[in-house]
């Protein structure tokens, strides 16, 4: 049993890691009242940024490059949505197309003469002692570094949202910007920062994909993760812990398909892939799900 369970759980966490990065970023953006459906663009930009930076400077620089590429996409989005006050949905859609188009084009040029651009990769790093724990060890503590970063980030973000004035200001901006302004909060600045953070986290999602999982860049390799991240935030009911849990649900859904293949089970794994979305929709339809959404989302 363990021989199935451990790889499944390990793969669940591995798949969930990049999703969690993007979703936590989107969570912060949405708590400021902005929905960035251009997250997909930030992720794919992060993928390419990580590839280029890591190729010449190493894996560490790869994460910086991915984060910066995502940050740039966030800045473009904020410029339109906050400064120009354009429609968030349309702008986000454009940003996704922009990211996919530009990265695909640039990558083709980089590899034009049959040249290969190799990414430096980060191997899983077993945590001494902890990785020898039964079951938990191999599942939780034989992961690449970004996963460990998330272990710290999730509680930190939860604490920050609830226990700092910065967190209060963010939530107030997303709930009722006018009241936030009346309390002396610079709501435009809050939105800028929240969007930039979301973009950077999207970029880190892409960097993790390239550096810790795939090891190279493929066109369109973000494969809808930006949209999945939005679903995760909803399923996680706009809280960091919930979002991390929801990322695991989506991770589990896609890990199941590998398990099924490994076991040669002839079950429609698409059902499991679709399940989290259906779950999200059902949750949205319940009253509690609605109450959890920032009141000013999308306005």
């Amino acid at each position, binding site marked *: 049993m363990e021989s199935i369970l451990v790889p499944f759980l390990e793969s669940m966490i591995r798949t969930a890691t990049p999703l969690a990065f993007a979703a936590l970023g989107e969570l912060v953006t949405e708590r400021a009242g902005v929905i960035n459906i251009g997250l997909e663009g930030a992720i794919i930009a992060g993928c390419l940024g990580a590839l280029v930076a890591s190729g010449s400077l190493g894996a560490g620089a790869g994460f910086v490059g991915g984060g910066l590429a995502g940050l740039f996409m966030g800045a473009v989005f904020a410029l339109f949505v906050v400064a120009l006050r354009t429609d968030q949905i349309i702008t986000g859609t454009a940003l996704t197309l922009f990211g996919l188009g530009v990265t695909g*084009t640039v990558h083709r040029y980089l590899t034009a003469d049959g040249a290969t651009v190799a990414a430096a990769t980060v191997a899983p790093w077993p945590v001494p002692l902890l990785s020898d724990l039964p079951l938990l060890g191999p599942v939780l503590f034989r992961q690449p570094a970004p996963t460990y970063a998330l272990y710290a980030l999730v509680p930190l973000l939860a604490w920050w949202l609830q226990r700092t004035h910065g967190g209060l200001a963010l939530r107030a901006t997303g709930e009722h910007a006018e009241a936030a302004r009346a309390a002396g909060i610079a709501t435009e600045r809050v939105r800028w920062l929240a969007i930039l953070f979301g973009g950077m986290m999207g970029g880190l999602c892409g960097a993790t994909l390239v550096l810790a999982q795939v090891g190279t860049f493929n066109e369109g390799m973000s494969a809808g993760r930006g949209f999945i991240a939005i679903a995760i935030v909803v399923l996680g009911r706009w809280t960091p812990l919930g979002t991390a849990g929801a990322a695991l649900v989506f991770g589990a859904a896609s890990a199941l398909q590998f398990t099924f293949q490994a076991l040669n089970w002839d079950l429609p794994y698409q059902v499991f892939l679709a399940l989290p979305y259906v779950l999200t929709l059902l949750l949205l339809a319940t009253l509690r799900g*609605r109450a959890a959404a920032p009141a000013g989302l999308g306005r």
Partner: protein
Amino acid sequence: MDALTALWDGAFGSSYAFWSATLVRATPLLFVGLAVAIAFRAGVLNIGAEGQLLAGAVASTAFALAAAGLPQPVVIAGMIVCGMAAGAAWAGIAALLRHRFGVLEVISTIMLNFVALNLVGWLIRGPLQEPSRINPQSATIAASARWPQLLEGHRLHLGFALAVALAVVTWWVLTRTAIGFRVRAVGASPRAAASAGLVDAPRTILGVFLASGACAGLAGASEVGGVTWALYEGISPGYGYTAIAVALLARLDPRWVVLSAVFFGALEAGAAAMQRQAGVPSVVVQAIVAVVILGVLAATRLREVAAARRTPVRAEGL
């Protein structure tokens, strides 16, 4: 320069390029572009044209496979009806969620896109898989279910004519009928529509959702009947998302959606040729589409700001 020449030749350079590449690619874009235009006109942010297209493709494939023995006009009419109904039903879920539970359609339609995508993935490996059970796709539909070509020797099919007709009808309904006027009024100002016109906005919005979904579903039927003749996973390379650009560039006017869809169809056809002949990656088209949308957004917005500045604060006199 070679790249641009290739782009132009691929889209308009020969009668084959125009009739068999550009217009064939423009057809689904025209359907989904109309779907988005109708929805946005009423202030409904339907990002789910992709899923509605897939729902339409599934239903029309299933019908075509089941009704293979019937006469061609019956099969084709059935595919159209099934495609529209399935697209409308798929959009109807989002409409219901918004109406009953206040769920933002932006989020729900995105979710439904993925559900539809996985649904297709399952169907073509399960109930709808071709008989040999090797490839993940449906059986090829019978000749009687294939949509007739409009021009001898060209790939252009009935779907394009339908799409253009649909654009005309949509334009006519929006501008000439009471229902269309309600749609426009609700989209422009739900408050004024309700207060000055006593318009039932929720009902109007429900209708718009269904109509938008039906248009997108028709795109799916048209692709199956006119181009692919089978259902498979990549049947839509993101038409539902490009549709937003198509509709926006046309300023949500159905007449202009026709031109806008042809423009984007040409871009895609030309880009494919450009890649083959000049080695310029075709994905650059997506970047161009994005820049077009952002440009339109920025221009519109800056014009509004400038207009607001020109109007000074003054007493409102005669």
